[in-house]
């Protein structure tokens, strides 16, 4: 019984982390049809900012936030704004290029060796709740994901800017003609993804205890997978997809063994392939077939 509860908790923690990876990808796809593979490099930038300012304790999160927003806005300005009217594939190539440039810039600056650090050691300690040991890290991962869901929902439902963003996601050119400032909406969207990248980078580096230039690849692929499973462009779908992926990961870990476990990721990508081809609206059908939010 206890192990079952433990497994459920780790599935929730993993799903929360994946949701933090997936939301930015879903958000930008909704607003500007961009699958932003450079998001992984935002996580990497945030990771290095956390590493460089590690002596500041939790205040380093603010440093990382500033650094990450700056880089996100610069990427948007350089790699995506000139191509805003281009089709989705060109944008995707541009995001590959931006990701490649940022990653290799990090290799040039920091070298390829991982840098070990830890901002808050106390998070790795466990507390016992009703007889079950849970680390603070797990609790905070789940909690911060929930906070993000609420904040994003409030922002998109209740604020003018959020409503403008949804309008832009619905029909970008129509929204523009109605006087919605495209650059502002997109800048805000990129800033939100930067903040999510900092959250993701914080928990990722706390889990692994290190940062390296290639740290962003896995999160962005996981986020992409979760987004596709949930239906491209739908935020709710992305969250659902992330928890589904987290749950499946833990389930496979527990149920499968040996050879099949080695091929687990191949199975996951197989599912992604089938979803894209057979059910583009996502497993849960939360996105409309055109992938609109």
């Amino acid at each position, binding site marked *: 019984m206890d192990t079952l509860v433990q497994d459920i908790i780790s599935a929730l923690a993993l799903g929360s982390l994946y949701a933090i990876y997936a939301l930015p990808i879903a958000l930008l796809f909704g607003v500007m*049809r961009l*699958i932003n593979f450079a998001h992984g490099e935002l996580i990497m930038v945030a990771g290095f900012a956390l590493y460089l300012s590690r002596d500041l304790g939790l205040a380093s999160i603010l440093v990382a936030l500033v650094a990450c927003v700056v880089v996100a806005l610069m990427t948007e300005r*350089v*790699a995506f704004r*000139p*191509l805003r*009217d*281009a*089709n*989705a*594939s*060109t944008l*995707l*190539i*541009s995001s*590959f*290029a*931006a990701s*490649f*440039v940022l990653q*290799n*810039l990090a*290799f*040039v600056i920091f*070298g390829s060796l991982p840098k070990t650090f830890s901002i808050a050691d106390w998070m790795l300690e466990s507390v016992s709740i009703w007889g079950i040991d849970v680390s603070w890290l797990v609790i905070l991962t789940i909690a911060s994901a929930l906070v993000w869901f609420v904040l994003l929902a409030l922002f998109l439902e209740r604020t003018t800017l959020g409503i403008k963003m949804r309008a832009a996601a619905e029909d*970008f*050119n129509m929204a523009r003609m109605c006087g919605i400032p495209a650059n502002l909406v997109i800048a805000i969207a990129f800033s939100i993804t930067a903040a999510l990248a900092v959250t993701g980078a914080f928990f990722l580096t706390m889990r692994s205890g290190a940062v390296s230039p290639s740290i962003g*690849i896995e999160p962005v*692929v996981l986020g992409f997978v979760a987004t*596709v499973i949930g239906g491209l462009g739908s935020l709710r779908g992305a969250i659902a997809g992330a928890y589904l992926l987290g749950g499946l990961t833990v389930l496979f870990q527990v149920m499968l063994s040996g050879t099949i476990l*080695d*091929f687990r*990721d*191949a199975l996951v*990508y*197989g599912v*992604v*392939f089938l979803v*894209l*081809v057979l059910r*583009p609206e996502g497993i849960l059908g939360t996105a409309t*077939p*055109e*992938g609109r939010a």
Partner: protein
Amino acid sequence: MSRFTSNLVSRVRPGHREPGNLGFLLLVVVAIWGAAFMFGTRSLVDIATLSLIQMAIVIGLYMYIGESGVFSFGHIAFVAIGAYVAGILCIPEATKAVIYPDMPGFLSNTSTPWYVALLAGGAAAGILALVVGLMTFRSPPMNAALATFALLLGLNVVLEQWSAVTNGTGGITNIETIDPWLALAVVAIVITVVWFISGTRQSRMLRASREDVFAARAIGINVERLRLRSFVSSAVVCGLAGALFAQTQGTISPSLFFLPLTLLTLAMLVIGGQSSLTGAILGSVVVTVWSEFLARGESGDLFPFELPASSTQLGIGLLLLLVLIFRPDGLTRGWEFLIGRRRRGSDDGLPPMQTATPVSREPVPDGGGERPD
């Protein structure tokens, strides 16, 4: 086909009716690489061989991406299949028994001449592409492109984990190598065949659908079927390129056929100009020269100081970004190199047809992520 149809197809892009001058393309490729093989030092020959194979991959990409206008982010999976099939077939039997004792069944005691392995590599890639293509070809282009990307990610896991056959992350070594001249001959044949195919009516119809998919459908072009056809044939070319990779390098591993190669080859195609064969070839030459220049800088041969490691990759990424921003149709802008023909205007007396630039305004059917202008 009605007269109207053939008019539209032939006027797809003024000056773009023929797939370029084969003699010229071949001459350039054979001259550059032949000179490198003949006069080059050992390291130059190695670089030239690798770049020749990358060019073959880019030509494979051109056959699908360039002609259909639909992107694929997973073609490197076909390169990997070709490389592994040919690689496994080209290990000498005696070596195989010693190094790869776990290899199952007939693989453990089969080894074939290089040309059989080469064709097997191409065929394996073609079969995989046919299976994948039959599943994806009715999907919106963006979904198909992402599905091939998922294929690449999944195949990479399989190559890394299926140790009995692929030897895992360590990869396969001791593949019997062939002379670079043979590789050059194969690539020259591939270029000839691709040139021939891109002159066929089917290819013209496919290019017509790239320029305006709705008009193409309206005149009865079966766009999906043509896309499937070019998807499979481009995968065969990629598989052959992968087989050549295994046979010239002698060593392959899963990480060689993953995201960096995907980006490098897509960069070559986009930089050269994705909608012409000349562009595919030019792009691979330009990127090779540029990256060699930077690699020399990294090793300190070129400047009084050393460029930091990873400058080469950084430089390729920057070049790709610059081209995407300032010259989104690539260096050739879709032109083929024609000798002795008029490059502009049409000779049927009609004014040149206004066509949208493919990258910025290319219409994508049903929810492919295109926003109406």
